[in-house]
């Protein structure tokens, strides 16, 4: 698919969701997997907008690129915000706690990590690159084995 470049602001979330849903449709993902992909991309991008660009004291852009292969849908997110590796974030420790003892945030990256098959982070020059991978069902054999 053609890449999408949007300003790193919350207004861009709709366009990002639209692009992600189109990629999921092109990959023929089932509704649950498609939802999970949208959630993961939304959380990663929201984190970039609210933290990556906020602390960098500048507005930058976010670039999304979907690549489809027989086996997987790969979505790459690139930004020029402060260096941040979401794969190094430890999972929240307060998920079992009652509401009065929970933190208000910190769930987005956790949900993103839980929602995709693989998340890879790279720092390339002045850019963060997050690579999200969703495995695709393997053609007709999948239907037979499931049926």
């Amino acid at each position, binding site marked *: 698919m053609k890449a999408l470049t949007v300003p790193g602001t*919350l*207004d861009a*979330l*709709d366009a990002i*969701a639209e692009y992600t849903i189109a990629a999921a449709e092109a990959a023929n993902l089932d509704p*649950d997997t498609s*939802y*999970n992909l*949208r*959630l993961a991309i*939304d*959380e990663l991008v*929201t984190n970039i*907008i*609210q933290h990556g660009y906020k602390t960098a004291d500048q507005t930058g852009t976010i670039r999304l690129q979907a690549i489809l292969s027989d086996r997987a849908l790969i979505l790459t997110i690139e930004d020029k915000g402060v260096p941040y590796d979401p794969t190094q974030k430890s999972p929240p420790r307060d*998920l*079992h*706690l*009652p*509401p*009065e003892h*929970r933190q*208000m*945030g910190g*769930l*987005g990256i*956790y*949900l993103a990590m*839980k929602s995709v098959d693989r998340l890879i982070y790279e720092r390339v020059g002045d850019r963060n690159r997050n690579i999200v991978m969703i495995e695709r069902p393997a053609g007709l054999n999948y239907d037979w084995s499931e049926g």
Partner: protein
Amino acid sequence: MDITINKLQAVTVVELAGDLDANTASEVQQKVISLATPSSKILLDLHGVKYMSSAGLRMLLSLYRHVTANKGQVVLVGLAPQIYKTMSITGFLNFFTTCETLESGLAVLQQKS
């Protein structure tokens, strides 16, 4: 995001329609938290919400805290299966009361007093 607020006897029914993400959750948060007056009974109808990110969870946690601090009650109805799953893996179902339909949600709020 469409927010519709109605009074049904003692219960304030808040109907949301649209996606709950970082772009829309803050507006919803402002509106619903102002409803958390002392002993308020709030029913949040999410039938029209097909997508919710962690920004929605943050709004829900904030609402829950305001409602319980004011000795009120809040019930969620009409959660899409994927939203139910998000709330489950983050532990939100441990403390939120959820119902499938508006009627069952109203019944829960009207029996507790």
